[in-house]
């Protein structure tokens, strides 16, 4: 498999909308007018820059939950990429999913679920085809100002990862039920992300801008006071 820098991608697949404008990832850089962007999101992302390129949306997370029961996206994203290219058949795609997952030592029923997932993703995505190989983009049409809006981080900035809203990673959302909560602070202590703070009465407050949805808090709460819902707010 070839890996390396792709300066002018024909198409770009992004697993979560929050990465679109991430200042370190910069997934849109180098995209030209005839390139295609696929975003895993149940909703459209209305951002000015995206008007110049073709954007396709798909709720792969929803499909993964339906078929595999987990938010595992690799087979789904792979299938979408294969279909977009217009070069790879359904059969080859599913064969590759099966082969790669078997190599990882996964059990056959899990592999089968992933194959079903890949199939639905493949069939529900439209093929756009690769642009011509002799294509030489003259200039970048997608101009994303990755820095600037929020100021340019410098070496002396501290605690500035807070600019990165990791809340979009969340597939499941923890919600504290104040009626059950005894303000024991266990969830606050165990949250790896420092996403839970305590209010003046000692009750937990979850920072949804950053909570990654690991659900350590839900597991550790001795009162079962943190329930879980599928996240839909993000996009």
């Amino acid at each position: 498999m070839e890996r390396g820098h792709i300066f002018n991608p024909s198409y770009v697949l992004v697993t979560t909308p929050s990465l679109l404008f991430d200042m370190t990832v910069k997934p849109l850089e180098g995209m030209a007018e005839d390139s295609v962007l696929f975003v895993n999101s149940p909703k459209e992302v209305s951002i000015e820059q995206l008007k110049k390129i073709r954007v396709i949306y798909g709720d792969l997370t929803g499909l993964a939950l339906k078929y595999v029961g987990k938010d595992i996206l690799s087979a789904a994203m792979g299938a979408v990429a294969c279909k977009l290219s217009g070069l790879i058949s359904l059969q080859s795609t599913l064969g590759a999913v099966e082969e790669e997952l078997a190599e990882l030592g996964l059990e056959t029923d899990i592999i089968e679920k992933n194959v079903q997932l890949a199939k639905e993703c493949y069939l529900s995505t439209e093929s756009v085809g690769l642009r011509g190989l002799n294509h030489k983009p003259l200039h970048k049409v997608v101009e994303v100002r990755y820095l600037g809006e929020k100021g340019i981080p410098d070496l002396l900035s501290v605690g500035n990862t807070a600019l990165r809203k990791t809340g979009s990673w969340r597939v499941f959302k923890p919600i504290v039920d104040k009626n059950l909560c005894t303000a024991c602070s266990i969830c606050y202590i165990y949250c790896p992300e420092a996403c839970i703070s305590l209010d003046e009465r000692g009750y937990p407050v979850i920072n949804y801008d950053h909570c990654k949805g690991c659900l350590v808090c839900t597991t550790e709460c001795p009162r079962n006071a943190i329930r879980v819902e599928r996240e839909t707010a993000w996009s």
Partner: protein
Amino acid sequence: MSIIKYKTLKDVPKEEFLVPGTPLCAGCGALQVMRLFHKALGGDVVWVNAAGCVTLMATFPYTPLKSSWFYIAMPSAPAGAQGIRDALDILIKKGKLDPTENLKVVVVTGDGAASDIGLQATSGAIHRGLDFFYLCVDNEAYGNTGFQASSSSPMGSGTATTKPTHLYPAGNVLPKKDLFEIWRSHRPPYVATISPSHVIDMLRKVEKSLSFKGPKLFLALSPCPTGWGAETSESVKLAKLAVETGIWPLKEAVYGEVTHTYIPSKRKPVEDYLKVQRRFAHLFKPVKNESIIAEIQKQVDEYWSKVEH
């Protein structure tokens, strides 16, 4: 008698020195350890890091830390710590730095840098009596590069480089290197193992170590949902199981004298810990590998038989 600052979970310091938004995996045990460890250390810290998962935490232009961060090549974190410690000491001595602005110099690395690539520099720093802290967040493999085996990977675990095969059904056949004992053999003032599940134990150990000048080293079990193949929500539970099965003893050594800070009254079978992680799945399926599980249990039992006497 010293006053014990940390008695209950209510005593966990509220100030945060690590803000959210890091790119580390959801449920990362190493991040959890660092957050709590930092609370006990306080804010006047300069971290010295060698390549590993936590390196990604602070990649320019971002850092989640409110403290300072110095990144250095994989074999040399303790050497970097020496340089910073010396610089701080000299500046203070010359009156160019106010002593109130002194910093604690804290090395943080994964087990790869601690047990393999940076062991020599660590040995040198302990030998010289460098006044520093070392926190090893041990996820038992090279997690950052795709979970290849390190010398800290436990026997029987599957990693990217020790996949179970018909020739090696156990996966990794080599034992986990005993870093605690390697560190302790240098007789530094303080060495301890910690677990993110046992928070008060961790905070007390950090508190205790603050009174010593010289090397203070901590080995932290750091559940890694990505590499261990477990749900992100299970990180703390796994750490707890590692302690309750006796696989991860909680102990400290002051100038080489070992004390166990927690002795599980009835140890859970190691199976409880192994069977919930994909890296050990080959020990259970398609057929249960009784002999390897029994061997792991035997090693744990032998360890504790020496402790309990």
